[in-house]
C-alpha cells in the first residue's frame, strides 16, 4: 500500500511545488504507515528524479513515453490510475494548479475516489479521513470527510511548510498501456512564458489597482518587483482596461495565489479581489483612503499616494541591498 504523488516537471526540471507535494505526501504516508511513491511523467534525468528522495519519497516511478509529450487529460489520468493500481495507492496527491485541476477529477471517477480539492493542511484525521479546505472563495473553510476507500487530494501551492528528509529511493521505469483511443486531442502552437517569474510560483508579488491611475504609471511597480525578485499582478479593472495583461489579474475570477508577501498599491480590496490573495502570508497595502477595505486584510499599511510611496519603497529596498 502507498501514498502516490504525481510530480510535474518543466522541461525536465522539478520546481518547488513538486517537492512541496512529495513532502506533503510523505507526511500522510506516515499517518497511514505506508510508503511514499512519487510518479514522474516525461523526460527527466536520473539526477533530477533523485531529488524527490530528499523530501522522503521511498520509491520513484518514471514514465517516459513519446505519446505523453503533451498533456492529454484522458491519457495522463489513465497513466496515473494504472500506477495507483499497481502500487495499491490509498491516497493520491496532485497539485492544485492547472494540470492538477485537469487530472484529479478524471482520476476521481476512474478510481471511484473522493476528491478533496485545494487542501492546505494535513488531514485532521485519517479515520474517518477528514480534510480542511477553502470554500466560498476563501470566505470560509469546511471540514470534509472523504468516504471512499481511495482518496485524492489536490494541494494548494505554497501552503504547506515542507522540509527535507533525505531518503535514497529506488527508481523504476514503467511502461503504461496506452491505447490509441485515449488520445482524442492534438496540441499545437505551444507558447511558453520565459524569463519572467510566474505569478503562481512567485514568493513575492507587487500588484497595482485602479489607484495607479494609468497603465503608463507602472514603472515603479515593475522596478520594485525587479528589486525584490517578485512577479507583478493587478486588479481586474486594470486588466479590463488593458493597462496590464490578463495573466496578471488576481482575484476570484483571476489567479488565486498565496505568496509570502503581497504588496497591493492603489487597490481598494473588494471582496472578489481578496478571494484571490487572502491566503498570502503577509499583505502590505498602500492606499490614500484610510477606510479602504484592503486595510482589514492587510498586515502592514501606509495611508498615502502610490506616486510618492512606491519610489520611497524602491529607495529603501535599494539601501537594504
Amino acid at each position, binding site marked *: 500500500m502507498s501514498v502516490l504523488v504525481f510530480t510535474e516537471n518543466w522541461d525536465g526540471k522539478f520546481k518547488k511545488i513538486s517537492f512541496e507535494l512529495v513532502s506533503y505526501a510523505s507526511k500522510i504516508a506516515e499517518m497511514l504507515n505506508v510508503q511514499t511513491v512519487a510518479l514522474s511523467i516525461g523526460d527527466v534525468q536520473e539526477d533530477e528524479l533523485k531529488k524527490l528522495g530528499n523530501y522522503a519519497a521511498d520509491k520513484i516511478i518514471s514514465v517516459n513515453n513519446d505519446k505523453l509529450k503533451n498533456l492529454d487529460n484522458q491519457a495522463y*489520468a489513465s497513466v496515473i490510475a494504472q500506477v495507483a493500481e499497481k502500487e495499491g495507492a490509498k491516497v493520491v496527491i496532485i497539485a492544485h494548479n492547472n494540470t492538477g485541476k485537469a487530472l484529479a477529477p478524471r482520476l476521481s471517477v476512474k478510481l471511484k475516489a473522493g476528491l478533496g480539492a485545494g487542501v492546505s493542511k494535513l488531514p485532521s484525521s485519517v479515520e474517518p479521513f477528514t480534510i480542511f479546505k477553502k470554500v466560498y472563495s476563501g470566505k470560509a473553510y469546511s471540514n470534509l470527510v472523504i468516504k471512499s476507500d481511495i482518496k485524492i487530494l489536490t494541494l494548494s501551492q505554497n501552503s504547506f511548510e515542507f522540509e527535507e528528509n533525505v531518503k535514497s529511493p529506488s527508481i523504476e521505469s514503467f511502461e503504461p498501456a496506452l491505447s490509441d483511443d485515449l488520445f482524442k486531442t492534438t*496540441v499545437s502552437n*505551444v507558447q511558453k512564458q520565459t524569463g519572467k517569474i*510566474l505569478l503562481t510560483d512567485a514568493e513575492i508579488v507587487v500588484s497595482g489597482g485602479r489607484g495607479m491611475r494609468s497603465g503608463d504609471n507602472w514603472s515603479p511597480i515593475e522596478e520594485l518587483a525587479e528589486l525584490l525578485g517578485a512577479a507583478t499582478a493587478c486588479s481586474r479593472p486594470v486588466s479590463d482596461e488593458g493597462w496590464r495583461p*490578463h495573466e496578471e489579474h488576481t482575484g476570484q475570477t*483571476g489567479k488565486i495565489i498565496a505568496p509570502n508577501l503581497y504588496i497591493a498599491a492603489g487597490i481598494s480590496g473588494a471582496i472578489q479581489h481578496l478571494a484571490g490573495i487572502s491566503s498570502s502570508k503577509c499583505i502590505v497595502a498602500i492606499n490614500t483612503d484610510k477606510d479602504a477595505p484592503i486595510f482589514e486584510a492587510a498586515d502592514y499599511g501606509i495611508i498615502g499616494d502610490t506616486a510618492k510611496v512606491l519610489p520611497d519603497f524602491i529607495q*529603501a529596498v535599494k539601501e537594504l541591498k
Partner: protein
Amino acid sequence: MKILICLSNVPDTTTKAKFVNDNTAFDTTGVQWIINPWDELALTRAIELKSDAANSIENITVITVGEKDVEPTMRKALAIGADDAVRIDAEPTDAYFVAAQIAEYLKSNPFDLIFNGIESADYNGSAVGGMLAEFLNIPSVSAVSAVNIENSQVKIKRDIDGGTEEVTSELPVVAIAQKGIAKEPMIAAMRGIMMARKKPLNVVAPVEVEALTGIVNFELPQPKPPCKMIEPDNVKELVNLLQNEAKVI
C-alpha cells in the same frame, strides 16, 4: 452542433459567508443567487458562437442539478439567450454526485460541446467538468481561455502552468472555462426576459448515486490582527518590518 452549459447556482460574489445549524449549513437568508461567473462567461461565448450562422449551432441548453429554488437563476440563463434548460431534481451533494447525474442525462441526450466553469463560487471544487468527461469517456480540456469553431472543428486555447497551448479535440468534448473565454458576461435584454418565460425548462428525475464526500462543518477564518500602520514618510520602517519582523524579504 449542440452546446450544453453546466450551470451552477451560487451566492452573489459579495455575499458574506454565514452558517447555521451548528455551522453545518450555509445561511441563505438574504442571499442573492447568480449564475456562477465562469458559467455565465461560457454561456456568453456559446451565444456569440451561435450568432455566426457559419458555425451552424442548432441549440444551446443549460443544465443544473438542483432543487426547485435554482429555477430563477436558470430563467436568467434563458433570458440571456439559452434556448432551453434542464433541471435534474436533486440536492447537489458533491461534485461526484453532480457529474454522475449530468453524465446519466447525456447518455440519452448527446451534445457536442459541453462547457463547465473552472470552479464554482461556493464549493470551489474545480471538479465537475473533469469528472463528467471521465464518466462519459470523452476528452476534456481545462483552463480554457478561448473557443472557436473552424470548419466544424472546435479549436481551444488553454493555459498550462507557464504558458498557453492550442488544442483541437474530437467531439464531444468538455471545455472547462476560465477567464478570457468571453470578455464581459452578456446581460439579458427586456425582450429576452419576456421570451424566457416561454422557453422550456424540463425537470428530470435523478438517478441513484452515492456521494463520495460529506461536509462535517464549516469554519470562518480566524480574525486577522489589526493592520500595523506606518507613516507615509517612513517607508524605511516598513521595509525594516518586512525584513526583520515578518521576515518576508
